[in-house]
């Protein structure tokens, strides 16, 4: 008898109300899509315009005579402060920093997650809790001591350099940043792998133990081959975070030719000598954004999963 009410309600509501409803919903959704797309769109079209067109034309207009020059200039000539060598060097700085930092932190996270779920010991939850909280601290509270330590390591590196002819990478900005990102990244990577391995059947691990498989054999032969999704999630999450980092980069590699991409971009945009070339700035910003955007387009699902895992699960 309750089923009767539903058709009745629909009939009284009429087709018109329903249609209007749908139009309003789609209208709002489209409006918000515009809101989210607008800055990217403006950035993109501006990067293909000439300066003349920017000053006289409309921000939203498509480029009349699209030109690649701003991109070429941003890549190889643009000035950051007083040095005018383009973004390419800084781009490689970022790559050289991101790749090792992502690999090391992911590997450590996998091992930690494996120990914390399959080789539980007394106090494991406390250990995990302490590592987890480390993800949330404002990095301002460790910034200064880390700067002091990196300074000492750098001086030691110089001494080594004088004594042995090589500093073994001590004091190298890229090495420093890799180290910093690994240290402050393992909390998250451990969290990802721990939560993933939690649902992995412990019986399999036990059976392998009975068969005499060692700790590392189990990890390599059983855990890792079954970890592909979480490895992808972790790598994407770490890649995005480290590539986008600005605070550590500006504190520990804030000037000279060792800057990563984000710091260089900020310097380029705030360089006040001469005419501000907005098109070149926008092209530089696009270059800085492209790697993470590309990852997002190719593996958006995993990207979202990483964000969620970092946010929702404790």
């Amino acid at each position, binding site marked *: 008898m309750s089923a009767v009410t539903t058709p009745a309600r629909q009939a009284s509501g009429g087709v018109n109300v329903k249609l209007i409803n749908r139009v309003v919903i789609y209208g709002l959704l489209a409006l918000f899509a515009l809101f989210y797309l607008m800055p990217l769109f403006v950035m993109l079209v501006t990067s293909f315009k000439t300066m003349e067109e920017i000053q006289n034309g409309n921000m939203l207009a498509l480029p009349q005579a699209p030109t690649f020059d701003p991109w070429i200039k941003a890549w190889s000539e643009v000035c950051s402060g007083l040095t005018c060598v383009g973004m390419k060097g800084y781009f490689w700085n970022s790559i050289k920093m991101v790749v090792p930092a992502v690999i090391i932190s992911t590997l450590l996270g996998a091992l930690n997650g494996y120990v914390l779920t399959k080789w539980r010991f007394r106090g494991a939850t406390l250990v995990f809790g302490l590592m987890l909280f*480390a993800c949330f601290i404002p990095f301002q*509270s460790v910034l200064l001591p880390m700067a002091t330590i990196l300074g000492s390591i750098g001086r030691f590196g110089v001494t080594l350099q004088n004594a042995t002819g090589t500093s073994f990478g001590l004091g190298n900005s890229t090495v420093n940043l890799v180290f910093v990102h690994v240290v402050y990244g393992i909390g998250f990577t451990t969290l990802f792998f721990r939560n993933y391995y939690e649902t992995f059947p412990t019986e399999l691990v036990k059976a392998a133990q009975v068969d005499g498989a060692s700790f590392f054999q189990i990890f390599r032969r059983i855990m890792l081959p079954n970890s592909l999704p979480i490895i992808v999630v972790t790598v994407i999450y770490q890649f995005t975070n480290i590539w986008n980092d600005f605070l550590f980069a500006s504190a520990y590699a804030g000037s000279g030719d060792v800057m990563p991409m984000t710091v260089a971009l900020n310097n380029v945009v705030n360089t006040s000598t001469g005419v501000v070339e907005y098109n070149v700035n926008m092209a530089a910003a696009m270059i800085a954004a492209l790697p993470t955007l590309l990852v997002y387009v190719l593996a958006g699902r995993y990207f979202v999963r990483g964000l969620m895992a970092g946010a929702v699960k404790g």
Partner: protein
Amino acid sequence: MSTVATSQIKLTPEHARPRASVRSRLQDALPKIVLAPSFAITIVFVYGFILWTIYLSFTNSKTFPSYAITGSRAYQRLWGWTFDTDPPSSWYTSITNMGIFGFLYIFICLALGLFLAILLDQKIRGEGVLRPIYLYPMALSFIVTGVAWKWFLDPGLGLEQTLHQWGWTSFHFDWIKNKDFVIYTVVIAGVWQASGFIMAMFLAGLRGIDGEIMKAAQIDGATTFQLYRRIVIPLLRPIFLSAFIVLAHLAIKSYDLVVALTSGGPGGSAWLPSNFMYEYTFKRNEMAVGSASAVIMLMTIIAIIVPYLYSELREKPR
């Protein structure tokens, strides 16, 4: 109930017990040995460094760290500045901005995120296209976001000029250059970046709600509005909590966005405590004051995060 213990019982018959003892003891300790470096790193570089920062905040370190404890002068100065409103001290500006930014950023992101998630949950055609569009800003760095919005909001070239060209010549929008309003532009850019992600969290929550409950309520004659207000939104409470934690945490850590979007604003009027800390520590040679402000930021985060983590870790007893 450690796995290690059970395995030992099973393994011993195969190995002669006395001979294997050193090796098997090493095997037993191996998991802890593997975990140890990460744990040690965390203890030293997170907790040790936090203590170090706290220590420094009680010295009178200026350009270089000094290790003679001189009392809570740095905190007293911050406390004094807290009420220094005419002209506003940098610290007063920073914490006021934090309040404005934190409240608006969290509130608008939650409201907009929920609103978009509910709209997207109405069996929308093209959801697969819309969702990534709402979410992509989260993949960008704050610096890129700042650069894009700086351009977009520039009075001379951006939105204002565009609307002038379209005929709305009285339109005036110079918040990004106005010391009283610059913090609101940080809110706009921040919301733009994070709201899509909050939408995704709510959408996942909505998809997790049992369809039977919704159907039952509909059959009972609940209007759509009632359905959401009385049933759906209360069911989403855990998501509200998670989203709040994420946003509060992002808000307190916000630093890059202010730098890239406003360069600190006219006269430092867009500073947040994170910018205050950085400027005082590295640029103004007031290391003790910078450290004290970092400690205050940390305390704020602890007040929010620790109860949350505690309940999350306790909820799943083994």
